[in-house]
């Protein structure tokens, strides 16, 4: 399998652009989709955001200078698109009635995985009450097992900031469990 760098160079030299791009998509699509879905919990939304992310990559790949890893750049775009989507959704939901909002907030989870235990529900609720940036950092660290340097590049913060975000997230989850 060709490296990201080789594929990007091929794309930039306009050698079979569509096929080259498709190879890049196939290599990274699952990780991007999963990260987005962890944040939005809905397949259609995650699919839509993932498509927007890849369209941006298509449009900007010619100018990509490979100063950072492709996957870091990809996750950064995914991060921005996801946060934009969530912000838009929040604006729209603020227009709905307070009852609707209450019901939405009280919904334990919108994920389609089976909820086997009470702790599962608490985990869902606990993660949802975190600020989006902390959620994103938490998931990149715990589930994607990324190092803090990469997380910092993705979220546009310092390494110290990324570490602080992760530890703040854990602290808030702990407090949430104590309260509930």
């Amino acid at each position, binding site marked *: 399998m060709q490296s990201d760098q080789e594929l990007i160079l091929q794309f930039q030299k306009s050698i079979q652009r569509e096929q080259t791009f498709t190879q890049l998509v196939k290599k990274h699509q699952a990780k991007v989709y999963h990260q987005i879905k962890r944040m939005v919990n809905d397949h259609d939304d995650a699919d839509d955001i993932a498509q927007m992310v890849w369209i941006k990559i298509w449009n900007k790949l010619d100018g990509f200078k490979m100063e950072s890893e492709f996957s870091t750049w990809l996750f950064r775009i995914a991060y921005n698109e996801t946060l934009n989507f969530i912000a838009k959704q929040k604006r729209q939901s603020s227009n709905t009635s307070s009852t609707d909002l209450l019901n939405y907030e009280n919904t334990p989870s919108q994920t389609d995985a089976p909820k086997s*235990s009470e702790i*599962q529900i608490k985990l869902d609720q606990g993660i949802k009450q975190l600020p989006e940036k902390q959620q994103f950092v938490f998931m990149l660290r*715990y589930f994607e097992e990324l190092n803090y340097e990469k997380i910092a590049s993705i979220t546009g913060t310092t390494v110290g900031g990324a570490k602080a975000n992760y530890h703040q997230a854990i602290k808030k989850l702990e407090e949430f469990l104590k309260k509930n």
Partner: protein
Amino acid sequence: MEQKKINTTLEEDQIMVERLFSKEALANYDKSASSVPTSYFETFPEKLQQRIANNKPQLFFLTPIGKMAIAAALLLVVASTFIFLNKGVDKNLELSSLTIQDISNDEIEAYVDANEWMAEIDWQSEAFKPDTEIEQFYKDSID
């Protein structure tokens, strides 16, 4: 103490979470993110290429909104030209159709008074010019 906490390894960071929630709960949470409709990833690249093809930037004047904007602008230019020209014709018509009978005596008297007064000013200003100019003035008047 705080610094020690921050310099944790990945394993230590994960253990911190697993002290709060069971590994099973965390794995289940991630399972929901991993679950996708059948053959989603197989069809995604093709679906994406189609969307990219449809998403290619269009020139503004070729888009439906662009076409409508251009049509509206043209219509506005034509309409305003028509209105402007029509107004001009009306004024000319009004002036050419005006006769002396349409003007009241008062208006005529006022006009004459005003022009007499103006003529007087002209006369006075000429009277104060040097002699040579006055002579020329008289010559011109006689001619």
